[in-house]
């Protein structure tokens, strides 16, 4: 991570892809200014990202409960991971909830964004946008608390409305089948507005001429969507898939407030399990080992997405 400040001559190796003519010939490299511009970020990066990352790796080889001195235990914590049935269950429920949230946000978000971009009065469009985005800026714990009222089995609004449709009362927060569904609904309800907004931005950047030309050519709405909108929107979709994956695997507040991860581990997420292990059981070494598995999962998922994206994303 060293930045050499040795001067470099010439501009031939100018690596920035930019448009227009090359900048005036500078005789020296920009090592000095670069260091100055980067220093603030480097300091916070080293102390609060790199240091703790190394710390997680080191801690995962220790048995430590905060009070006594830690003891080096080699690969014991990783051995424990392999035999931890709860960990597997928690990864199962986390993956289930994260994938459904991802699909809902990316697919339903696209549908709502496309509908929002159809012809309608300005004021109405503004109202729709405002209401879709608003839950995104409200804190997750406030959102979860509201839904704790609404999903109450005996008195909640949701079961009341379902009752009007002659559906039996559902134990939204207390049954292992519906607790994860509740987390999915509440989290998507809160976060889908962000995806919708990013889609709107992507849709608006598609030139109108393409759409008009295809109408002249007699393409119907369905063909237009798949032949024009979807390919041109694919970088936006890819961005949302990557971001929604990372954020939905990190869910913590909703299960914490709504279900405490229960019943059993039915709605427990990996972050909640890590938190309980570290700050409930004070099993810091094992919690660090769990953290490493989580990091590996995110790295593998992102790598897969980048690999697959080459098949379906389209860049102009």
């Amino acid at each position: 991570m060293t930045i050499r400040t040795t001067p470099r001559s010439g501009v031939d190796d100018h690596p920035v892809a930019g448009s227009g003519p090359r900048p005036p010939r500078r005789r020296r490299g920009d090592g000095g200014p670069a260091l100055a511009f980067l220093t603030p970020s480097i300091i916070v990066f080293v102390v609060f990202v790199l240091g703790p990352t190394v710390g997680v790796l080191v801690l995962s080889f220790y048995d430590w409960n905060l009070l006594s001195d830690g003891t080096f235990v080699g690969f014991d914590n990783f051995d424990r991971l392999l035999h931890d049935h709860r960990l597997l269950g928690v990864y199962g429920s986390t993956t289930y909830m994260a994938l459904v949230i991802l699909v809902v946000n990316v697919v339903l978000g696209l549908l709502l964004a496309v509908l929002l971009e159809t012809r309608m009065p300005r004021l109405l469009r503004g109202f729709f946008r405002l209401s879709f985005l608003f839950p995104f800026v409200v804190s997750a714990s406030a959102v979860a608390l509201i839904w704790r009222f609404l999903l109450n089995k005996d008195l909640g609004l949701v079961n009341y409305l379902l009752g009007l449709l002659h559906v039996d009362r559902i134990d939204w927060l207390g049954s292992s089948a519906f607790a994860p569904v509740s987390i999915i609904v509440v989290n998507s309800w809160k976060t889908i507005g962000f995806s919708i907004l990013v889609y709107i931005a992507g849709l608006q950047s598609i030139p109108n001429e393409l759409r008009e030309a295809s109408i002249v050519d007699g393409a119907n709405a369905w063909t237009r969507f798949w032949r024009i909108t979807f390919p041109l929107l694919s970088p936006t979709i890819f961005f949302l898939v990557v971001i929604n994956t990372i954020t939905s695997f990190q869910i913590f507040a909703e299960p914490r407030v709504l279900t405490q991860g229960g019943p059993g581990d039915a709605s427990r997420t990996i972050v909640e399990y890590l938190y309980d292990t570290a700050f409930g059981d004070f099993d810091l070494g094992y919690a660090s080992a769990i953290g490493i598995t989580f990091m590996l999962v995110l790295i593998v998922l992102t790598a897969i997405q980048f690999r697959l994206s080459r098949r379906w994303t389209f860049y102009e």
Partner: protein
Amino acid sequence: MSRLVPRVLTFLVLGIAALAITAPFLWIFRGAFSGSDAELYRLPPTLHPSNLTVHNFGNVTEQVPYFRFFLNSVIVSTSITVAQLITCSTAAYAFARLRFRGRNALFAVVIGSLMIPIQVTIVPLFLVLSKLGMTNTLWALILPGIFSAFGIFLLRQHFLALPRELEEAATIDGAGHVRTFARIVLPLSGPSLATLGILCFTYWWNDLLLPLVMISDTDRQTLPVGLVLLAGRFSTGSLGTIAAGIAMAIVPVLVVFVAAQRYIVQSIASSGLKL
């Protein structure tokens, strides 16, 4: 006729979605004025004035230091946002416009750190901050949030897309990098900076994990934890008080959001988030 059906369907879908999102807020606002638990849960809800009260709001401030929570949240989110805008924009400028050895490697490290969220490193982070004597202070909530790989990436993409001609003209006029950055690049980057600011502020305003881990004094908690503390008194307090607490947490956000919504929507929309 054939064009009417899709239009009706469009408004039906959008209308249902908007209702599903706004109804819970309206319900909690009404609940904040309910005089008893039975009244809060009365279905369908009524708006008859004899059943409504404003006492719940007073009860909130009696039960928890609500304004303290609010102030703490404002301090933490604002500090992180300002610090992130400074560190991310300077780093992004270096990555977008300066030539130095190891630039690509360093940028790869930044992008790689996207995959190490704070949840992974929370344990050593807690240890570092407690060694520095900062746990149980607001510093423990501010400092870990400042570095943002996403912010650097977002701003770098934006800086790369800026026309170089203006910067070149400035260089010919004898402006150095600091001046070019402050006088040319930053003023052209309003929407991107606003987008980063909004996303950063809302993320840290909403965060529950860090304050739960770092803070033990009630007086130093932020609003999300404060609400959970208030709701923890489900057994003793009235439900109307909890509803009032939630409403009091939402209203300021709502006011700012409605006032700035055009700007928020415009800035995120025009910054064209994609990979």
